[in-house]
């Protein structure tokens, strides 16, 4: 019994030691309206939505566009060129940090409108 206790205790200690390892490693999935409404400023977020028609601007290797769902839209800034079929009017998934006004993207991925579903609807 004492061996089991030692095992249990050491597992508990290891789990507690692991907690700080999660710092800054968790990415929250959001839709644009949730992002605007929620208080996740400063957290790493992953936002899925549609690239608003006419909002895309390119400037010195940066891109700027609006990502929207039915409820709201978010301005996205990305230092780079999105891959492949990134287009206005299409679905996109953006990872980055939201400062309350602008979503500064670290990664922009394309999801095609046919296959795009907002992450929150994917509950089995």
């Amino acid at each position, binding site marked *: 019994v004492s061996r089991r206790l030692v095992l249990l205790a050491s*597992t508990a200690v*290891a*789990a507690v030691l*692991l907690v700080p*390892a*999660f*710092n*800054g*490693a*968790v*990415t*929250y*999935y959001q839709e644009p309206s949730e992002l605007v409404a929620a208080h996740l400023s400063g957290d*790493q977020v*992953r936002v899925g939505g549609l690239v608003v028609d006419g909002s895309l601007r390119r400037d010195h*290797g940066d891109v700027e566009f609006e990502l929207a769902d039915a409820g709201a839209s978010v301005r996205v800034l990305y230092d*780079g*060129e*999105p*891959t*492949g*079929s*990134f287009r206005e009017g299409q679905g996109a998934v953006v990872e980055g940090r939201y400062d309350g006004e602008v979503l500064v993207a670290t990664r922009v991925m*394309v999801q*095609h409108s*046919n*296959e795009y579903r907002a*992450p*929150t609807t*994917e509950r*089995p």
Partner: protein
Amino acid sequence: MTSLLGTVLLVGTLACALGATVVAATGRTRSALLLMLGGMGGVLAATLLLAGALLAPDFSVAHVADHGARWLTVRDRVTTLWAGPDGSLLLWVTLMAGVTAVATAQGLRATRASCPHPARAAAVLAGVTAFFAAVLLIVANPFAGVSPVPLDGPGPNPLLQGHPAMSLHPPLLYLGFASAAPPFALALVAPGGRRWLPQALPWVRASCVLLTAAIVLGAWWSWSVLGWGGYWAWDPVENLALLPWLTSVALLHEAAAGRRPAGVLSSALAVGGFILVLTAITLTRSGAVLSVHSFAESPQGLPLLALLVAALLTAAVVAARHRGGPPTPAVTGRRRALVLTAVVLATYAGTVLLGTVYPLALEAVTGHRAQVGAPYFDRVAVPTALVVLALLVVGPLLGSHTRDGLKPVARRVAPGLVIASLVVVALRVAGSEAPVLLLALGLVTAAAVSTAVAWYHSRRTGRSAGVALAHLGVLVLVAGVAVSAASSSQEEARLVEGESVSLSGVEVTHDGLETASDDATMTTMLRLDAPGGALQPHMTYHRARDFLVSEPVSRTSWRATYQVVLLSADGDSGEVALRLRRDPLLAWVWAGGALMTLGTALAAASRRGPRTPRRPARRTDVPEQVVA
């Protein structure tokens, strides 16, 4: 017609597997084997039938209508078998049925001592197979009829087309997964003190070889097809494949320590390994994890979750009822290092599992959907890798029985450490500064010396060569991962025809844009002058799925690999945007993976080597020979 025949075959498979479960549960292993062979024949015939329907192609069958196409190459038509959730479940049931039949036959031949309950183990395996056969037939029948019959299909997800890894990765992964089932069944029906481990070991070895190959091939596919610049994203699906690999490697090391009777750790690793397989199958197929493998979302989720819960409960009940057999003997020297390795790997598997299922718990509690990313996994992986490297430096040089003093061990380790220090100093002079990277490369060097020395002093059997090769593979892989992660670089540029640019130190020139088109696709190809000859990164638009894929190209040497991805191309102006990523020592990752696979395969295929002369059996049954 195909639809009806296929469904009948699946019904037959289910009936045979259910029959085998019942018959085995009443102790008639031989009859169970016959039934299981029947089930295996049925599902194998179904698989061949579906392959034939894909080759024809016969669009009256659901899986072909959903994933097949006329314009696919023969190889892509065959691999489309597992390019969708229903077809891949058929493959899984086929492999499970095969493994169950072989394991049942093995149980019949085994002695009472090594397999006291062959019928019960067979019942567990047949039961699991029957469950998957039922899910296949009821919610995921690839042979469901389609009406009206379409003239052509959309083809599989374009990302799954045309890459050789796709013909190997899924079957190898699934066979590796299925090979984890017999150790689970054997440990479950004979927990604790029984000598189930020798019976289970061939399966653990096979599982380890297959999973190593499958995971490395998957990483290679991810790197060469997705073009995001990496090979491992700590994506939940990747983690879920890694977990059973970790438990199988841990179990091999625990077994090599030669503790008899096998202890709680062995049972936990064998049972846990297959529970992790069930977890992997459940989470990926239910779509509970959001990832690039989203093709796996399907109605299979709930029944699979039920099986996972049942397996967990059964294991918990067995563990709770088990009142400790004879104590596992304490071991010293090299054997203690082996046990420690198993513990480290098992603990590490726990941390990976935690990071992978944390989002599910978070969502259940707070409602927020989230994913745990690379920072967490890297923070845990780096110290674990350093501990494993340290074990690889010291472990192989420890004596197998006597409690060595510190001095003789230090004397044996010293030459390796001296060479490692020289390497570190040389790297430091050459400009490498990151302390963790230098420490890792120093340990890799010392461990390479230890591996070579240990092999030289071993009996030099096939097995010891295999073990040395596999360890060398680990070291090459770790060096490749560490160096490429620490010093990769990537740059993007926009170019017009004739323009040159230097990206991450590689000079490339835009040498024209070409477009080509056929029935299924439209391709835009850039001719790019690069050192060592022209490269042709291209983008392919797949009409059937209205899907654009950018296909990266790369150039590899043992020093560095660079990969070019076409980000966008304007057909009118000829202007393109491209990204070049340079990874030093990336080829070492693939070479290391190949060595690990070869080494484990060689060790698994080799006999134990010359037997020590037989001695009268003693009451304390500690084997003289240590397999390490």
